[in-house]
Every structure is written in C-alpha cells, then in structure tokens.
C-alpha cells in the first residue's frame, strides 16, 4: 500500500466504551455527544459550532475540559489564539501543559521540543501502559477560537501532529463560531484530508435563553421577580447586542443586588414562612415605608373608611394585614405560572403567533397590563374558537399535563374541570362517529334535498354540540386568564418582590462611554460635586478644570482648529476669572504657566480622541467628533 494512512480501529472501540460509561451522568450538557466514536483517519477532529456569544464559550470549554479530564484522558490542553502567534509558541504551550502530566508518569527530563517529547513518550509507552490504563490515552487539544488562529500555524501544527498519530493519538476540538465551512476557508485540502471530522452544534442561544428563563424567571420558587420593563431591557441587550446567556445571568444578578440594596422593604422578599416571620417584626420605619408604597395606598383606598383609619394609625394592624397580603402574593405567583404556561401552550401553535412566539413575550405583556383588554388577545381567542377538534383536544391535554405538576388546591380544581371538558369532548367523538356511519346510507334525490335544507337551517339557527362545547371551553379559559393572569402591578405589596428601575439597569449594563465623557466635560459638577462648578448651560466657568474649558471652546470651532486662536480664547476665559477689569494691560496676555496648562489640556484632548494633529495646515489640529454641544 502506497499510503501513509493509519487505521484507528482500536481506539474507536475504546471511545464507544467511554461513551456508554459516562453518557448517563451528564445529560445537562450536550457535550456527551462530543466523543462519539470516529475512526479511520489520522487525527480526529471535532468541530464545536457554538454561535457568536463569545463570553459563553469560555464556560463551555472549561466544563468540557473538566469533563474530558475526569472521564477520558488527563492529557487535555486548551489553547487560545492569542497565545499562539507562531508554531513554536504553540508547541511550547502544548509542551508546558503536557510536561506536567508526563513528568508524573515517566519522571524523565524533557526538553522543550515537541519532537523529543513525543519520541520520549513513545519510548516510555510500555511504562505508561503499566501505570495508566492499557489503552493509549489520546491527547486532546482544544482550539477555543478557531477563526482567530493564524491558519499557517494551524496547518503546520496539524501536519506535525499527524506524523505522530501512530505513537500518540491526537484529538482536536475546534470551537467555531460562524459555520462549519470556516474550516475549508482556513485549511487547504492537503491538511484537512488528514482529519476525520465530526460536527456538533451547540444549543442555539435563543433556546438557551428560553431554558434559563424557564428555570430562573418563570418559576414561583424564587421570590425575587423582575418587572416587565426590566425584562425588556435584559432581553433587548441579549438580542440586540451580544447573544450571551452569561451576560444575561449577570444582568439578572446585578438587578438582584440593586434591588436588595436600594429597596429597604426587600427584607420581605424571601421564602413564604421567613417573609411572614419578618413581617411580624417590622420596624416602625419600615411600616411607614409600607404605607407609602403606591400599591399599598391603592389597597387602602379600596377598604372601608373605618379600616382605612386603622391601617393608617395602627402599626400592629398593618403588620397583620401585611402578612395576609404577602400570603396572597405568594398564592398569586403559584397560580400565575401554570396558567401562563397553559395559555402559552394553547396559543403558541396559532398562525402568526398573536400572543408572541416565546413564553417570555406573553409573560411581559401579562405583567404589564390587563391581557384581556388587548387586541392581540381578542384575535388569539377568535382563532381558538375555530380550532378543529383534534387540535383542541391535543392542546387541552398538554394543558392538563402542565397543571398536574402544579400542586395548589385551585389548580387541582382547574385541572378537574379541564379533564371534565376533555371527557365530554371524547364522548362527543363517539357520538359523531355514529352520526357519520348513518350518513353512508344510500341517498336519493328527495332525501338529499331534505338534508341540505336541514343543514341550511342549522347553519343559521344552532351550532352542533361540538361547537357549543368548544365555546364553553374557550370561555372557561378566558375566565381563567381574567382570574389569574392579572398584572403584578395591581397586587398589593408587589414592590417588595419586583425590581422595576429599568433606567438604572440600562445605564449600568449598556454603557455609553462617549456620552459619559462628554457629560463629564460639559457638566463637571455631575461628577466632581463641587458647588462652584454649578453653571448655567452655555456659559463657560473658569473654575472648571482646564480640560473642560478647552473642550467647550473647541465645540465652537469647525473641522480645523487654529491652535493660537484656541489659546487666546482659553486665556480670555482664565483672565476673566482673575479680575473683572478687562481693560487693563494684562488682559489677553498670558504667562508661560497658562500656556503650559493649555498645552497639557490639548494633549489630554488628543488622548481622549477629540482632536488630532493634521498635516493639512501647520499649527492646526483636526476635530474628530461632531455635535454633542
């Protein structure tokens, strides 16, 4: 055979063993599939197609790395494009990682050359086989960001490794963010033909987000909740900017911190019995705070006048009412989520998705306003009213499944009603079958006429039993929605659990560095909090830092700024502060101190990227930003 190919039959077997061994305990990650057996060629390669959410990759790879080290082989190296500028560097990286493993095993002094290392490894392989398992353990190299690698380095590395696959099996894992065709763009055929490639797709980031949403937000376990605006901000950042689930979770954590930090009543935001306990021992100050909550005030207004007086004067009474309200809030949440899921499962299959494709959209519109007053809800109900029987039954079955997991009394009640409806629908099916059997009899002209007439009259007058039942079911669902999916804002004491300051969140998470620099330069008081810096807009205070003065002056100029004119304007502002006497001799003159301060301010402006020197005109600088005055 005139080929350099090497078969890998033995290790393939090994891999399938491994898979069966650890396939059971890591269902959460889809990484288990990563090590499906693949035989035949020299090196084995796995692409991981990951999507562009870069911050999430690090986590995925860390867990993959740990998993591989635990279950497959201790020789796992993960390399980053930044660390591998040349093939030499990459080899060194690889060796420095591997060295620590091999010295444990063979206690040989290793030189800094991969070739030596690999040769030595093969020399000591009998020893290794004694020490470790009987199989040759593969060396796994993870390329975290495949696109960013220098393709020449990668090619050389693969060629070198392919020479040693007989002695030391290699497995490469490429993390690819764009599409699998990237490999054909980076590697020529002579190199890619050395690889035996399998492609794995990670979960798409929107699916990933949906699962995070289900576990963290659409869950009555956690007392901390987000208001609709906050959810919109977080989801907006995710969809518009980064596609990163990790950043989303960080945003969630941040809003939690912010909530517990800024809202003193968040002591009540905990599990039910703890919340009731702490409601009993509320301080006087906190009771007063409760009285000032908008939702509590709304609640007070609905009470009898006598009760109102008691609520406003008696602290103990407030605590008692507060406990009652907290209980109500908890039951509200417990009933809210199952009904929300039911409604979603009913409407998610409708054409054009009137209530949104994802459950998060439905959730946002539910906690924002009365859902049943919206046009979308009306159109969704109309669509539900013309659902075919089998579709309706299937949808109701899935609803019943959802309700089975909910364990409140009311939900069990609802479930029973639903099952009752299901039973009636099925009974109807039997009846309609018998009807259809009758229709198969021979018809003569007279009978046909009669039945047609009958149908005509039926259409105008009465619906068939299925249609009656269907409208009953839809009315039942409508009543459920009206009862349980009330907006959270109308619940008394909702401020305790719901974090709602979306403005703060947007400011913190979606930063605009340029705007804040401009704000600092135009309104130095905003950051420095010095009383003397308070000025009217449009005027230039000489008490401001030099940089602010220079910045404000430069806003009045065109594309090219004459440095001398600028300096003179600066000196005028400065001297205006020193003495009001503008007619004196010194006005307009400047000393070297002012000159130096001006030059320093200009160079700071250049550093911040507002101006740059230009070759078009001597002693001019070019402006780089526009507007923002």
């Amino acid at each position, binding site marked *: *055979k*005139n*080929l*350099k*190919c090497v078969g890998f039959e033995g290790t393939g077997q090994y891999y399938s063993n491994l898979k069966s061994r650890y396939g059971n305990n890591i269902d959460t990650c889809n990484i288990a599939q990563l090590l*499906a*057996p*693949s*035989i*035949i*060629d020299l090196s084995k390669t796995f692409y991981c197609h990951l*999507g*562009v959410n*870069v911050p999430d990759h690090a986590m995925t790879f860390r867990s993959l790395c740990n998993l591989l080290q635990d279950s497959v082989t201790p020789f796992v190296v993960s390399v980053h494009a930044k660390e591998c500028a*040349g*093939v*030499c560097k990459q080899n060194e990286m690889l060796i420095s990682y591997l060295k620590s493993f091999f010295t444990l095993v063979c206690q040989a002094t290793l030189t800094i*050359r*991969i*070739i030596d290392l690999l040769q030595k490894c093969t020399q000591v392989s009998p020893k290794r086989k004694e020490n470790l398992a009987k199989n040759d353990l593969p060396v796994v190299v993870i390329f975290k*960001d495949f*696109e*960013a690698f220098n393709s020449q380095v990668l090619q*050389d590395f693969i*060629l*070198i490794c392919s*020479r040693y696959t007989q002695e030391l099996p290699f497995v490469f894992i490429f993390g690819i*963010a*764009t*599409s*699998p*065709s*990237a490999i*054909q763009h980076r590697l020529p*055929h*002579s190199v*890619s*033909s050395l*690889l*035996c*490639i*399998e*492609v794995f797709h990670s979960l*798409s*980031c929107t699916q990933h987000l949906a699962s995070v949403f289900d576990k963290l937000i659409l869950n009555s376990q956690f007392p901390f909740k987000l208001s609709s605006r906050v959810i919109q901000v977080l989801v907006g*950042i995710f*969809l*518009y*900017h*980064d*596609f990163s689930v990790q950043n989303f979770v960080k945003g969630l954590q941040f809003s939690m911190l912010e909530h517990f930090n800024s809202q003193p009543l968040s002591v009540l935001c905990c599990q039910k019995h703890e919340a009731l306990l702490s409601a009993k021992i509320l301080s006087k100050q906190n009771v007063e705070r409760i009285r000032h909550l908008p939702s509590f005030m709304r609640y007070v207004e609905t009470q009898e006048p006598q009760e109102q007086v008691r609520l406003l004067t008696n602290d103990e009474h407030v605590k008692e009412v507060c406990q009652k309200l907290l209980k109500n809030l908890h039951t509200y949440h417990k009933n809210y989520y199952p009904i929300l899921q039911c409604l979603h499962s009913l409407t998610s299959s409708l054409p054009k998705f009137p209530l949104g494709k994802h459950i998060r959209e439905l959730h946002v519109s539910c906690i924002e306003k009365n859902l049943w007053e919206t046009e979308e809800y009306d159109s969704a109900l109309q669509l539900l009213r013309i659902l075919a029987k089998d579709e309706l039954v299937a949808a109701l079955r899935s609803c019943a499944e959802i309700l089975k997991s909910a364990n409140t009394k009311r939900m069990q009640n609802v479930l029973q009603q639903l099952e009752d409806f299901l039973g009636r629908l099925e009974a109807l099916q039997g009846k309609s079958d018998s009807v259809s059997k009758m229709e198969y009899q021979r018809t003569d002209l007279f009978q046909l006429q009669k039945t047609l007439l009958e149908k005509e009259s039926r259409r105008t007058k009465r619906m068939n039993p299925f249609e009656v039942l269907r409208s009953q079911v839809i009315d039942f669902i409508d009543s459920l929605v009206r009862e349980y999916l009330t907006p959270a804002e109308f619940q008394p004491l909702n401020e305790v659990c719901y974090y709602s300051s979306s403005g703060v969140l947007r400011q913190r998470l*979606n*930063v*605009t*560095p*340029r*705007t804040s620099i401009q704000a600092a330069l135009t309104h130095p008081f905003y950051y420095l909090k010095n009383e003397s810096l308070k000025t009217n807009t449009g005027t230039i205070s000489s008490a401001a830092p030099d940089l602010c003065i220079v910045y404000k002056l430069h806003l009045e100029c065109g594309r090219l700024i004459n440095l001398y004119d600028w300096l003179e304007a600066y000196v005028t502002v400065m001297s205006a502060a020193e003495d009001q006497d503008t007619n004196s001799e010194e006005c307009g003159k400047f000393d070297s101190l002012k000159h130096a301060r001006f030059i320093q301010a200009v160079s700071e402006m250049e550093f911040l*990227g507002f101006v*740059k020197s230009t070759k078009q005109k001597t002693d001019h600088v070019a402006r*780089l930003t526009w507007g923002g005055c």
Partner: protein
Amino acid sequence: MALIKCPGYPEDTLRSLAERLPCRETQLATLLALMGQPDQYSYPSVFIYGHRATGKSHVVLSIMKDLELPHASVDCVECVSSGLLFHQVLSAFFGPDAAALLPRCPSLSDFVRLYKQMSSNSPATQTRYIILDRAERMRDMDFSLLPALLRLQELVNDNVTVILLSEIVWEKFRPNTGCFEPLLFHFPDYSKAELVQILSWDHHPSYTPELYASYINILLGVFFSVCRDLRELRHLAVLNFSKFCEPLEKGEAKESDIHKLWKNIEPHLQRAMQTVYLREVSSVQWEQQFFFSPLPVVLSAHAHIELPYYSKFLLIAAYLASFNPARTDRRFFLKSHGKIRKTNFLKKHEKTSNHLLGPKPFPLDRLMAIFYSVVDSRVAPTASIFSQISSLVTLQLLSQVGHDDQLDSPKYKCSVSLDFILAISRCVCVCVRLYRYQYYKFLNDTQPYI
C-alpha cells in the same frame, strides 16, 4: 513482475519490497540502481518530485526500513529552525549524545564540524541517507542551508546522500547564486488501471476480492473525472462500501448481479460527489445521514450564522461601505439628496463592476454613519456596539486594514459575499438592493436599450 536484482542486498527482502509497492516497480528499480551497493559511494543529492499521494515518501522509507540502511528521516514542517534539523540528523546517525553536543543556536559550520568529528570516530560502512520530506519548506529557512546540504558529501567527506522529497519541481528551488544540481527523479501520477490495482488491495475480508475490484471500478467510473488523489479516493471507497454491500446483506442480490448493485449505489455516489474533497463529515455521521434522511444534507449548504440584531446591521453597513463609492453616500443615505445628474453620477473608472475589484477599505466613521442611517430606530453609541465590530473582526467577517494597534481612525474591509449579505438583510427586513450602487448602475446601463 520483473524480478528486481541489485547486488549487495538480500533477494528475499527485495522481493517482498517489490510486492508491497505495487505499480512502483520501475521507480524502485531505478532508486536501487542509483543507490548502488551499500558500501559504494552514492550520488550526493537526489531530488524526488511528484504529486501528492504518488508514494514518494512511502517508497523511499520502505526501502530504508526494509533494507535496514542507516537513515535520518526529517519532516521539514517540524524544523522551525535549522537547529532542529541538525539535531535530528545527528541523533539519528550518532545517537542522542552526539546531538547534545550541538551549541544552543547551531550554525551550519557547527553541524559540519560535529558531523566530521563523529564520522571520523565511526566512519560509514554503508551509505548514510538523509531524507528531507516536504523539502519546499527549506526555501523559507536559511538561504545557505539548501546549497550546503546538496553537497554535504563533499563538506563532511563521508558517504552520505541527501534525498529531498517535494511536490513541486526543482526549478522553484534553485537559488539565485547557483548550486550543485541534484539528480532529478519524477514519480508520475497513477493511471486509472493502477489506481484500481492499488485500491483493490484493501478489500473487505468477508467479500471476495473480485467483488471489491468491481466496486472499485464503479467508484472510479464516477469519481475519476473529478478526483485522482489516491488518498481521497480511498476515503470515498471506505465511506461508500457498506452502502454497496447493503443488497447483498439483505439477500436481495447476489455477488454476480453487478448491474443491480450498480443501480443501487449510483445515486449515492452522485450525492457523494457534492462533498468530494470537503471532508465535512466522518464516516459515522455519513452513515447516520443515510440512515435518517433519504437525501443527505450537505452541511455547508445551511451555513447559517447566528448574529445579534445590530451585528447584522453593522455587517450590512460594512458591505455597503466596501462596495459603494464614498461619493455616492449622499445619494443613498441622505433623505433630501436632491437630483443627481446622470452624466456626473457615473464616472468612467467606476463602470467596471465593483465586485471584480474587490472590497475597498473604509474608515470607522463612515461605517458608523451608514449604520445609523440603515437602522431605523435611534441607537445609542454604546460600548457594546463597538465591541461588536471587533468581534466581527475576530470572526473574520470584517478584516482590519493596516496595523492592528492603530487606535485612531482604524480602517476595515468587508470580507463576506453578496449572497451572505442578502440572506442577512432578508432576516432583518432591509432592502439592500435599494442602497447598492451596482444596482443603479445596472438600471442606468440597461435603460437605453429598453
């Protein structure tokens, strides 16, 4: 098979060698004749060239191994510096202790000195061979290295021969200053008959060799016109053989029903044709594809990239900035652009298609300006917008022009195709066509004929 005779070597080994190297008997005989008897001086340097997978390294290395000749085989890809090359050669001939004597950054003269010293201690009884695989990499190394290696025999005064293996011809190697001309030796491509003979070697043990040979004939009938690479063909043969045998295992056909088997395998081979050379899937996935879907999905076909909403717009803006002349931005992106006279609108040098000229670099400011006018809603210039640009660069959808560390006014180029942009703009509901200069030019050109 003509028996290869070469005095000085055991005949049994030669015979088994010839059997193991089918279709390379002439090359084998010539090489052995060149090498002469083990103790004779051989030609100082031999240059062997031929296409990929024509058996160059395999033939040479099998000769070396089977005849147990002293040799050092070095892959030039590994040798990032010439020091590594010297190290490997010395340790192969004189043991690792000799190689350890090399100084830290060995020069060519160090190597020659050390080699001489060592060979005077243990003079060569047989010709020593240095085999340099992928010799084209030597051109990137020290310029004096190649000429020196070519006349190494003279320099070290020892019975040593350097064999260079390469895929490209000697003319591309020759240094300007001239050098000792090595003996050129070509390995020709395999003919179709030879390919059949070689591929039939790895027949499946549970089937007769005749069946496998007929399978190979069918395979070559389909693929020979597009692919003559032995390695690729072998990969394809392994990949599709199980499909070929399916009717046999089900008992629907006998081994003699070649026509029936051909009917069965032909559509699959046609489909495999689409992915030839691509190596997108392993054999396991390939089989699974057949198993689950009657029509295998070509993976590169759904090359769909998930991008955040604004990244898509940034990419569209980058594309427009790259392929529209900056002069026409006013026309496309300003609400009140006014009439533009037709004669001035087109300049002569712009008549050639922009796509033939490739993308043009554009500054960041222009990208942002187009971006703001393409996006409908107001977008704050947040940090994440700018970080999206840099992540587009790491994904190599945009490429940065000039230095990487340029901070003020960096320039970019868009490196994706029109189809890709059209697919993206369909997702975000932007009609790119309206903004494309090329489209207007097309309208302009065709108008006189309508």
